[in-house]
């Protein structure tokens, strides 16, 4: 049977199932195949905080969305063209997101009376007219898998568990994905259980063959590779990029990396990744709590390491006092906040941009801290190096903001040559800097206002630092009113004076009167929305902040040179508040706090409204 092959420029697939169905793994594998093939791509994993919520229920649904294209894309996509629903709960939780005409591949074996009732379906939607606006492919994935594995020495349970690989095989056929990578992956993953490896590979191939032979699928699709700038690429998630960025910062600074961290969603993968790289002299310390994590990092920094702590919002709250100590002792420290939905425990696996004001101000006293925010998953790499550069050059703690969307999302990344990376090394102080061989730990560099950094082991420079106010220069305890006023201002001036690149505005025609400004992970959805607006004739400029404190020097000028500034944020207007206070510019906020990234279509409509409104 010869099947028709249709060309597409882009596809959005969502794999959805029970949290035990292996949907994240299936999505990861499809992503790897797609990256290997050379498409541009962007992913959005979405999973419950519960490790195994009750099977078959709506709270237990886990999904993985992947957008791939023959051109460069910016987001994981708004609405899936294909939904793989492993059970009724997965269908129910996701069907509302599907546009008319989308494909639904449903595992009919799970559409039992009991499972349907669990999620409130009165009848079987696969058999009535309720899904008429979509193309439904009813496939008994479980029983087909079990049948395909009849000759294998695996239990029925293990055979059933391979159904995700059957689904992956089917989708791989449907979109002409390469298969060698997945076979190699399965061989390696189950190296110690060769029978399981064989069974999973057989299920994967059976899925492919099923697509080839069944009449349920008459068409398959091709999405040509994208033409991206030349280079070597890999797929990378935000957390992995951030971990690599920290290692790169250690190499580029010549200082050993010390990570003090306490496990917390969605930041733990940075700890996991860094703990694998002891060959780089990386020390990872899983502390007894968040406070000990940052404390140990600061202690290591006092000893001359590149001290880092990684956490999410609740952890930043606990670390605040120690960050203040780093501010006043003027030691380099990197605090990574992978933001998640709050307040309190909030929604740990969902994304938000609600920690900006905490990062800026969440400490006692006048306690200025540089704040950076990564824009995309791969940008986490570069911002980690930038955070280290600032921390070391200015002897200050730096807050680096990521979020759940960047942390778990992935995209192809043109791998940089280490020779392209900046040299961020600094020199420890080894000689006295005062009269009569004295060492003045708070005698500042006149240009950067950074204090000298002499580490223990340096003879003749023995000194004491601490949280009590210090006399300018000597660092001795001081309660002098004028000295305190001077030190408060010096610490502020040091942070205000950090060299930050100018804000770059993208305005192809140069005549836009509306600027869309963003920060952090909204870069992709905003850029995609701006493209849409421009395609439909809208004049709109875009700029994105990666340095939030201090802001780029031209920020005020940029804001004032547009009639209107639109600022979408996944919070209730935190950056908008800062910009209004600082520049008296009445930015137009667009805020949604749903635990999910913005959709390009949603923002395109907002941009259009702003352009058209008076």
């Amino acid at each position, binding site marked *: 049977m010869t099947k028709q092959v249709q060309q597409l420029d882009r596809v959005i697939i969502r794999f959805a199932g029970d949290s035990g169905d292996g949907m994240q793994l299936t999505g990861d594998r499809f992503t790897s195949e797609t*990256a290997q093939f050379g498409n541009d791509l962007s992913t959005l994993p979405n999973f419950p905080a519960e490790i195994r919520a009750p099977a078959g229920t709506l709270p237990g649904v886990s999904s993985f969305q992947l957008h791939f294209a023959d051109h460069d894309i910016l987001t994981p996509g708004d609405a899936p063209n294909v939904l793989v629903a492993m059970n009724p709960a997965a269908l129910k939780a996701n069907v509302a997101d599907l546009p008319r005409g989308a494909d639904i591949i449903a595992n009919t074996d799970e559409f039992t009376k009991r499972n349907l009732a669990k999620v409130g379906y009165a009848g079987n939607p696969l058999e009535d007219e309720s899904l008429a606006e979509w193309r439904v492919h009813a496939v008994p994935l479980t029983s087909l898998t079990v049948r395909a594995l009849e000759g294998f020495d695996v239990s029925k349970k293990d055979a059933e568990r391979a159904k995700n690989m059957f689904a992956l095989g089917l989708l791989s056929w449907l979109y002409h994905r390469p298969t060698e*990578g997945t076979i190699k992956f399965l061989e390696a993953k189950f190296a110690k259980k060769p029978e399981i490896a064989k069974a999973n590979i057989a299920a994967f191939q059976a899925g492919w063959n099923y697509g080839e032979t069944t009449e349920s699928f008459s068409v398959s699709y091709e999405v040509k590779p994208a*033409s*991206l*700038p*030349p*280079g*070597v*690429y*890999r*797929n990378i998630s935000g957390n992995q990029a951030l971990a*690599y960025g920290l*290692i*790169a910062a250690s*190499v580029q600074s010549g200082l*050993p990396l*010390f990570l*003090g961290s306490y496990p917390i969603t969605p930041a733990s993968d940075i700890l996991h990744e860094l703990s694998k790289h*002891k*060959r*780089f*002299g990386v*020390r990872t*310390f899983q*502390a*007894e709590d968040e*406070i*000990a994590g940052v*404390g*140990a*990092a*600061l*202690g*290591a*920094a*006092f*000893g*001359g*390491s590149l*001290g880092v702590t990684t956490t999410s919002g609740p952890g930043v709250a606990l670390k605040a006092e*120690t960050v203040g*100590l780093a501010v006043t002792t003027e030691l380099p420290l990197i605090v990574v906040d992978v933001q998640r939905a709050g307040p309190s425990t909030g929604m740990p696996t969902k994304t938000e941009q609600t920690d900006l004001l905490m990062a800026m101000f969440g400490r006692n006293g006048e306690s200025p801290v540089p704040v950076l925010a990564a824009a995309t998953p791969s940008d986490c790499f570069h911002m980690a190096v930038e955070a280290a550069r600032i921390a070391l050059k200015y002897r200050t703690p730096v807050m680096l903001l990521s979020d759940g969307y960047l942390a778990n999302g992935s995209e192809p990344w043109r*791998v*940089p*040559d*280490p020779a392209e990376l900046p040299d961020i090394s600094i020199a*420890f102080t080894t000689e006295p800097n005062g009269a009569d061989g004295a060492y003045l730990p708070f005698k500042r560099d006149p240009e950067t206002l950074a204090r000298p950094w002499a580490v*223990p*082991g*340096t*003879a*003749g*420079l*023995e*000194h*004491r*630092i*601490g*949280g009590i106010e210090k006399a300018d220069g000597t660092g001795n*305890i001081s309660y002098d009113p004028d000295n305190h006023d001077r030190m408060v201002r010096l610490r502020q001036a040091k942070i205000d004076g950090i060299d930050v690149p100018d804000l770059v505005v993208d305005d192809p025609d140069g005549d836009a009167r509306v600027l869309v400004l963003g920060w952090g992970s909204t870069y992709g959805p905003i850029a995609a929305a701006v493209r849409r607006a421009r395609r439909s004739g809208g004049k709109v400029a875009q700029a994105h902040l990666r340095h939030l404190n201090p802001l780029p020097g031209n920020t005020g000028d940029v804001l004032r040179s547009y009639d209107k500034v639109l600022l979408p944020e996944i919070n209730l207007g935190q950056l908008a508040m800062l910009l209004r206070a600082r520049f008296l510019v009445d930015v137009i906020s667009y805020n949604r706090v749903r635990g999910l990234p913005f959709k390009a279509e949603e923002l395109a409509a907002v941009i259009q409204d702003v352009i058209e409104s008076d």
Partner: protein
Amino acid sequence: MTDISNGGLNGKGLALVPRTETAQTLKDFKSDQEVRWCPGCGDYAILAAVQSFLPELGLRRENIVFVSGIGCSSRFPYYLNTYGFHSIHGRAPAIATGLAASRPDLSVWVITGDGDALSIGGNHLIHALRRNVNLNILLFNNRIYGLTKGQYSPTSEIGKITKSTPMGSLDKPFNPISLAIGAEAGFVARTIDSDRKHLQGVLREAAAHRGASLVEIYQNCNIFNDGAFDALKDPATRDEITVKLEHGRPIVFGTGDNEKAVRLSRTGGVEVVRRSEVSDDEILVHDAHNPDPSAAFALSRLDDPAFEHVPIGVFRSIDRPSYDQLMNEQLQTATADKGRGSLGDLLLGGDTWRIG
């Protein structure tokens, strides 16, 4: 600075800390800062004892670091001409952990008090002890909050009348020695501010121990809890109640007709009996090196708020690998297996593809 990037260090006690070639005196360890404790405070005696003890170690001064939290005792680092870090309340063991784990070439001392170590910082203390981080933790126990002006502390006796407990405190106090042994600390000792010889002897053993050493120092706060340890200092009572623990020696104390001995009890603990009532081989011989902490724990329970008998000395001193040592070994093993990491190779790891 010693190369700390790649582990590869082994040794005990102070073996990894560079030694000085020039003789040191007490003066070398005095900083230029005016000491500002209340006149008569027990901290002065401890400071003087430490300053006169440090030259004995023969270490390079620049490789010694004192880290403290918050409280009266935590001002200590300012008065020593070494590296020092006066940090925040309760967190000194955490900060010192990062320093000691990344710098095996340093002799790191933590100065803390009963409130700092056992209340706000209790969590960090027990974890530093169980990990056996290479720290000497000196816990100045005066059984009161001094710097906040006289509230009861986690070592105050039940019923303590203070500003915050006008009808008496309700909480049962911690016994720091029992707590440390419960956390399986490798080195646990108690001494007293007024007995310089004993204090310095304990410090000597603590410094020689690689890993976490917890030294409780009974320290008099003459403003808010004066005389808390008088029974241990008054010549009339001192020798009757002080149980000096010495490794390998039968545990006896008291004088003349009041001489007492310690033996194992039938309930699994230890008990104090009149010396005349027991034969020599019934008397418990102190074994500080016993890997089983049970006897050391039982001895710590002899202490009681009424001070009928108070053990001092080294309760427990056992060898086990220190945290920095184990961490360095992992770095060394990883590097030995596959060589030093290359950034280029790391970034190109996993599945890659070429465009153009």
